[in-house]
Structures are given as structure tokens and as C-alpha cells.
């Protein structure tokens, strides 16, 4: 895999290079860049398979590099020290990211995943999706990318009736009666979707309030959804769920 590293700090570049050479021998580093212009140049020059992209680069962002490229035929692994806004958008696009200092296992996972994606030759729409999301204010995000076994689904939040935990996976129940199993935990999606109004009623359940029909008192509290399904509300979540439903 041809890779390119982009970071404004030389020590970070050095560090990433050391780690990749040691733990990910399938990656061959073609070049590194410390600013956006160099980054665009070397990407165009080397047509890499994989780009490690620092989000915060001085007063600019790694996203700016993506915006400057007409075609993006590569996988991106974002690297960041601390940038909530960027990470949020990256998560919605179901893209991979690494936090500094870099965890070796996460690095290996991310590289493996990228390798897998490149092997299946799925057209990479995630970056387009990310750049679209970045244009909008964070609370206005209306779509989410769901990484399935062999494809990426872009789903409108209004289509999601509920999510249910299935071990470390999450099952999405859509209004089209479709079910999607995603290889991420419910907690991750709960954190991601809570700002959009989704309710964590139970440790295994995340519900879109749009689809709540009524509150049933049986068994200490149950939500009846418009789909006819009954979703349990656990005791610790009862008050917050009730309050949120009243505000609707």
C-alpha cells in the first residue's frame, strides 16, 4: 500500500513513520508533508492508496487538503490530538481516525480496514459525504454513513426508527423495515446521535423520538413505537426520557 503522511509537526511524522515501519510492513511510505500545499502536490504526484491526515495543521485543517483535490481515490486515516468538531464529522462519515499519542493496536486495525476496503474496491463516497457534512452546522446533520460488511450505507436520520445493541455490533431498524448491522457499539452511536435528539432508553436501545407513539406504564415504563414495537425504558433513564418526550 502506497501511503502518504501529512502532519505539520516533524516529530509526529517521525513517530508515525517509526510505528508504521515497525507494525504495518504492508505500508510503504512514499512521502510526507508538513503543510497543505505540499500535501496536495505529493498526493497528486504519488496517487497513494492511503493518506494519514492530521486534522489540525496550524491555522488550517486536513479537510482543506481534501477540498483542494479534484479526485480522491484513496483511503484516509485521520490523525488528531484534540478536535471535537472534526472528529464528530469524521464519525458521521464512518471514517477511521487515530488519536495522538497513537495506540499501536488502533493503528493496525485502521490500516487493516483500509486495506480491506481497497481490496473490495468500493467507490469511496465517504470523503464526499464528510465534506458535505462539514459545510453544515453540527446539530443540522441529517445523514449518517453506516459501515456494513461489504458496503457503506448513507441513511437519513429521519429514516432510523431505533438502534439495538447486538454484542459489540449495533442493529439499525429503518422505516423501510430494513435492518442494518454495523460493526460499532451502540454507545458510539448513542454519543453520535444524542445531539440529534435520539433517546437512550436502555443500555441496549436507542430510539428516534419521532417514532414514539406513547408511553406505557406497564413494567415500570415502556415506549410504544409507531411500528408497534415495545421498547423498554430502564429505571435510570426514565426521568430523562420522560422529560425529553414532554418537550416534543
Amino acid at each position, binding site marked *: 500500500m502506497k501511503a502518504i503522511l501529512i502532519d505539520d*509537526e*516533524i*516529530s*509526529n511524522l*517521525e513517530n508515525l513513520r517509526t510505528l508504521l515501519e515497525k507494525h504495518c510492513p504492508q505500508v510503504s511510505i512514499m512521502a510526507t508533508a508538513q503543510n497543505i500545499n505540499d500535501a496536495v502536490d505529493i498526493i497528486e504526484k504519488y496517487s497513494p492508496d492511503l493518506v494519514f491526515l492530521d486534522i489540525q495543521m496550524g491555522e488550517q485543517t486536513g479537510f482543506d487538503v481534501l477540498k483542494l483535490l479534484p479526485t480522491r481515490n484513496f483511503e484516509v486515516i485521520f490523525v488528531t*490530538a*484534540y*478536535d471535537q468538531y472534526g472528529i464528530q464529522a469524521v464519525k458521521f462519515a464512518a471514517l477511521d481516525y487515530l488519536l495522538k*499519542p497513537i495506540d499501536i493496536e488502533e493503528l493496525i486495525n485502521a490500516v487493516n480496514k483500509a486495506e480491506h476496503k481497497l481490496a473490495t474496491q468500493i467507490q469511496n463516497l465517504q470523503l464526499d459525504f464528510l465534506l458535505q457534512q462539514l459545510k453544515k452546522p453540527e446539530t443540522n446533520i441529517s445523514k449518517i454513513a453506516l459501515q456494513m460488511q461489504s458496503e457503506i450505507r448513507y441513511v437519513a436520520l429521519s429514516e432510523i426508527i431505533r438502534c439495538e445493541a447486538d454484542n459489540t455490533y449495533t442493529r439499525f431498524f429503518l422505516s423501510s423495515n430494513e435492518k442494518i448491522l454495523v460493526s460499532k457499539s451502540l454507545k458510539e452511536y448513542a454519543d453520535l446521535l444524542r445531539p440529534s435528539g435520539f433517546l437512550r432508553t436502555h443500555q441496549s436501545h436507542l430510539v428516534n423520538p419521532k417514532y414514539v407513539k406513547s408511553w406505557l406504564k406497564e413494567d415500570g415504563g415502556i415506549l410504544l413505537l409507531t411500528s408497534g414495537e415495545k421498547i423498554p425504558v430502564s429505571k435510570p433513564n426514565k426521568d430523562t426520557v420522560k422529560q425529553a418526550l414532554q418537550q416534543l
Partner: protein
Amino acid sequence: MKKIIFIFLSLIVAVSTVNAQKGINFNHIYAAGGKLLMCVDSSAKNVFYAIGFPNQPRTTLSYLPEVNNLSISINFRKNINIRHYRYTILIDSKPIVLNKPIDMTQLKDTHAGGDEEIFSSTTLGIFPVKGKIITTLIYSIDKPQDIDKAVFYVKPIPRAKILSFRKRFKTNQGVDYKWITDIKDRTRIALTEKEDELTIVKDKSDIDYLYYTSIKDKKTNKIIFKSTTWDYGGIISEDHEALPSINIDKNIFKKSGEYEIIIQPSIKWTNCLDCDISPKETEKYITRHTLVITLAEESYTKKELYSYALMAAFVIGLNFLLILHAIKKRNKKKVVEQEQQKNTAKLQLNSIRAQLNPHFLFNALSGIQNLMNKNEIDNANKYLSKFARLTRNVLDDKELISLSQEKTLLDDYLQMEQLRFGFKYEINRSENLDLDNVEIPSMLLQPFVENAVKHGISKKATNGKIVITFTKQANDLVLTISDNGNGFDTEKKNNGLGLQLSASRIALLNSIYKENRFTLAIQPSTNGTKISLTLTDWL
């Protein structure tokens, strides 16, 4: 109605069958009270007849100052049992007829006052009356208590005489009295706080009921008191006779000043036919007495004056104390409020202080990771301990740190950043500045230094340079941070979180330390930025 007409009509003219005797004009009949009628001398003027009195329904008085002879007759309605009537006539309180029945043989039918009604009438007697008082008492044996009393007063009505004044005052036991017995035309009466009532004592006469009393405020000429009654309670003359008196509440005298007591007979001098009595003459019947009232509120005895002064002083003193207390309380409240504000400011300051850029923290850790991965173990150790020291400083809640501590902190920080960007830096100090003993608020400079790194020299790599100085200028401590970066636009609002936080932090510090002791100056230029922080009168 007919009865009222009969008694009170001013004049009843009737044709009398009785011939004129002793000069009496029998054609001119006056009502004389009750069932009585009277005729007087044809020459007589000023006949005040049948005067009634409050609370004395059966007593009438006729004042006949110029009459010599008087004829008294009685009229009965036809339905009255005349045989049951008895009459008594007194001349000067000596009875000449006592409980005598009516002589039925003498009764004649008569029209009284030209009325259609026919009465049975008889004459009770014709008397020479000059200088006398004739009194008739008439009753029916069916109701022996209902005695009609008619008085014919044929001598000058005497002027009432004020015998004495009496002041009532409160004592611990109840009340007691003070007397003023030496009465002239004018009496000065001082009424103290404790004196609440004034009593006027009149001389005793047979016709006390005739007199009424009024009191006039001489200043306003208004009658402020009027009484037609007399008390006979408790004031006894030397002859063991109960004397008429009236009690006057002190409160009618609203102000100190002159008041006139007027005691006069209740005769309406103008209310009679052929009356020819001048005001000068009527004045002879009126008792006028001037009271000079002095009320306690304006006249204090020395003792009272002292006590009032003492009381006033006490009240003023109390007020003063209360005000003082209120002011103290308010000040205390103010101090508490200021304290609270200060505390809030401190809390805010702490929270700002705690916001050491996480971007820096994680990048620094990343730098250390790099050293480890490059097997530069000694360096990794060195930076790790620097990082620990820096983190500890952020987590520490110290308000003030010494300049030498601040220098170490900045060294640590800048060396960590050097690891990332590879610039040069210097920290210079005035020789006469005691770094170990001068203290400044902790994390005061770090945000500015961070800005210098981030916006100033991070792009210049090894060509970048940061110079920090600690200078003593008279009593001021001047701290400067300069970099040789590209400078930044002060107009641009979005100059990074660090600078914003620093500005609000300096505002907070000024609110805590007062007198605006912290001044921040930013001098950007094309070849770098200089930040000076002056701590006025700090040394």
C-alpha cells in the same frame, strides 16, 4: 296639633267676658304653659311667655319684667275629668293655694284662640306680682307625678355667677382636683399633660335650668362648646347646697389662647311681640368670662423640659445608633458581596487556568512517544518529566507562583514545543529582580507564550525565536514576550482561544487585585509580535 297651637302660638286673641280689672288687658291672652293661659297689664311690654326647657317637658317659664298684675286661667278640653285636677299656687315659694280642686261652678265654655273647639275654662286668680315669682303646680290625681309647673318670673332675672373653676388631674390612685376660687373677669388656666377636665361652678338659683353655657374661641369667634344642662354632683356650697356645674373636656381647647365662657338665660330676646329690649339691656343678663388657656404642649415646667430633652436626646441617640447599625450592616453586606464576587472571579480564573490547550498536551505526549519509538530513552525521560511538571502546574490550584517557578514552567513548556517545532528561545531578567521572592498569578504568561509558538514561529521552524523578559521598572514589574513570526492582526477577532482567555483573565485579575494593576499591550509588526504585561506597583 291643636294642643301645640294652643300652647305655643305666640298670640291668642279671644273675646273675654271678664271685665278689665286692675288694668289687665283680658283681650290679650298669652299661653303660659300646660293648660294655663295668662293676661297681663295692658301697658306691659316685653312679655316672654311660656319658655320651654330641654329635658323639662312639664316646666315653663314666663318672664314678665314689666308686669304689675297677672291673671292666670286654665282651659280644659271637654273630654277631661276636671274634678280630678288639683292646683297649687306659690308666691315666692310660699303656697297660697295648696292642692285645691277646680271650682266646677266657675267653669265657663270658651273658644280658645278662635278655635272651633270649645273648652271649659276658669280663672285661678289675679295677682299683684311685681317683684315676685308666682309658681303654679297642676296635676290630675290620676297621674299625680305629672305635674305641670309654670313659673311667672316678675322680677329681673339675675345674672349667673361663676363661683369657681376646678381642674381634674390624673394621679397614680386615680384623679384629684385643683381649685381656682378667686374669680374675676379673666382667669388664666394652664392645663398640663395630666390635667384632663375643667369644671365651671355656677351659683345656685331657683332657675338654674334657665341658664345655658357656651364657650367661644375668641380668636376664631366660633362657639366650640354649648351645654344647657347642669350637674349637681358633689360640689356643695358652704350652705350645704349642691351647686350647679358643668364639666368640660380639655380637648375642646385645641390651642392655647383666649376663650370666652358665656352663661345666659335661654330667652330669645327677639322672639316676642311688642318686644323692645335693646342689646345693651340683654347684655345685663349675660355672664361673660374670659379664660386664658395655656396648654401643656407649649408650656413645660423645667422638670418636664429636662425630661423631654432627655427623651429627645434618647430618641435621637437611638436613631443614630440604628442608622449606624444599618450602615454597618450594609457595609458588611457589601464586603460579603465583594468577597463573593472575588470568589466567583477566582473560580472563573481557576477554570480558565485549567484550560491549558489540550491540543498542546496531546501533541506533547505524541512528541514523547516519538522519542520512545526512536529509542531516545534519555530524551524521552527528560521530556516526560517536563510534561509531568507542566501538567502538575496546571492541575495545582496555586494562586501565585514565584517568578523562578514561572521561569521553570516556561522553560519546560518551550522545550516541549521546541521538540515539536525546533525554534530558539531566551528568557532574560533584570539583575535587580528577585526571582525567588516576587510572585505572580500562576499561568499568567503561558497562554501568551503558547500564542507566540502557535501563531508566531511554528512555521519558521529553526529560524523562529522567542524572547521572554522579566523587567523591574521602578515599582512595576514588566513581563514581555516577543517572537519573530509574521505578527498577527489585532483587529481580527479570531486570534485563537488562548488570547481571548488571557484577555478575560486579565480583566478578572484586575477585578480581584483592584486599581487595574494589570495592563496588557500587544504590538504586532511584520517581523514579529511583542506582548507586554505590566503589573503596576507590584514590587
